[in-house]
């Protein structure tokens, strides 16, 4: 019963932290566009928060640069459990066009575990909404023995 209430609360009010790990800004402005009136992600209870300590979902955009790597790990550690990382954009999924650059580590999953991948360059706001909703559906499905964070689900097509 308590589990049910907790899960209901978790699904109905996912608080989001947006973190740019070295992106070109394109996915970032699309994340904000998804939160503003035309697309309105807030109707699902999602709210953009300023600090990892309040967040349930971290939307990471961009390839992980060498400089940001430690900060990304620190932010991940600051976020309370349960936490879900969403890789937004092709760069966040795999490194994208920047794969192989000397200052780029690769996708988000080279540094921290990722729960959902949303490919696109840049991701359209509709795809971000779709991705977050699919993640919420996943959270809503009880998985007593498994942890959704570690599983990893691909959304809207292949990772590449």
């Amino acid at each position: 019963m308590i589990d049910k209430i907790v899960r209901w609360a978790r699904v109905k009010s996912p608080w989001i932290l947006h973190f740019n790990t070295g992106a070109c800004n394109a996915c970032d402005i699309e994340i904000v566009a998804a939160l503003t009136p035309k697309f309105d992600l807030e109707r699902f209870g999602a709210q953009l928060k300023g600090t990892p300590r309040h967040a349930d979902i971290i939307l990471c955009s961009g390839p992980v640069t060498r400089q940001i790597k430690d900060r990304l790990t620190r932010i991940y550690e600051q976020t309370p459990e349960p936490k879900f990382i969403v890789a937004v954009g092709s760069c966040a999924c795999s490194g994208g066009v920047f794969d192989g650059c000397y200052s780029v580590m690769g996708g988000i999953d080279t540094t921290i575990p990722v729960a959902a991948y949303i490919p696109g360059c840049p991701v359209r706001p509709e795809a971000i909404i779709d991705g977050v909703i699919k993640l919420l559906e996943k959270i809503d499905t009880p998985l007593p023995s498994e942890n959704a964070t570690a599983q990893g689900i691909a959304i809207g097509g292949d990772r590449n």
Partner: protein
Amino acid sequence: MSGEKVANWINQQLEARNVSVPRERRVVAEIAPLKLVESIRMLKEMGMNNIGTITGLDLGDRFELIYHLSNDDGVLLNLKTFIARENPRIPSVTAVFPGVFFYERELMDLFGILVEGIPEGRRYPLPDDWPEGEYPLRKDWKGLSADKGVTVDGAN
């Protein structure tokens, strides 16, 4: 002042070589590194009141530095200077244009050129844990080697 006039002024006032005007509003000139700061100061007084950026190039046997100066009439002057690849050093022009700080930092980080007289500051743009002696924009640089403690996937 038009491009032609800037070129004429440079020919008369500075000890520059190979002054040319490749197209309207573009001037190219070469200067000795020792004359650099003085020349840029004189150019600033003449009206070239902005440095867009500094481009560094690795020519294999030496480095080429291009200072892109511009004036209010849209003329862009590419002031070139060449320095040796062994023990490369160049005086800082921050005394004339304080805004070039970040561009000179780039030369230091990406080419390993010692900029003499640059104000104290944090490094830019490479990360704090970047190993010493690795300069990515040099042509013979092929990536970080594993023995520098940083491998391709970043694991130590």
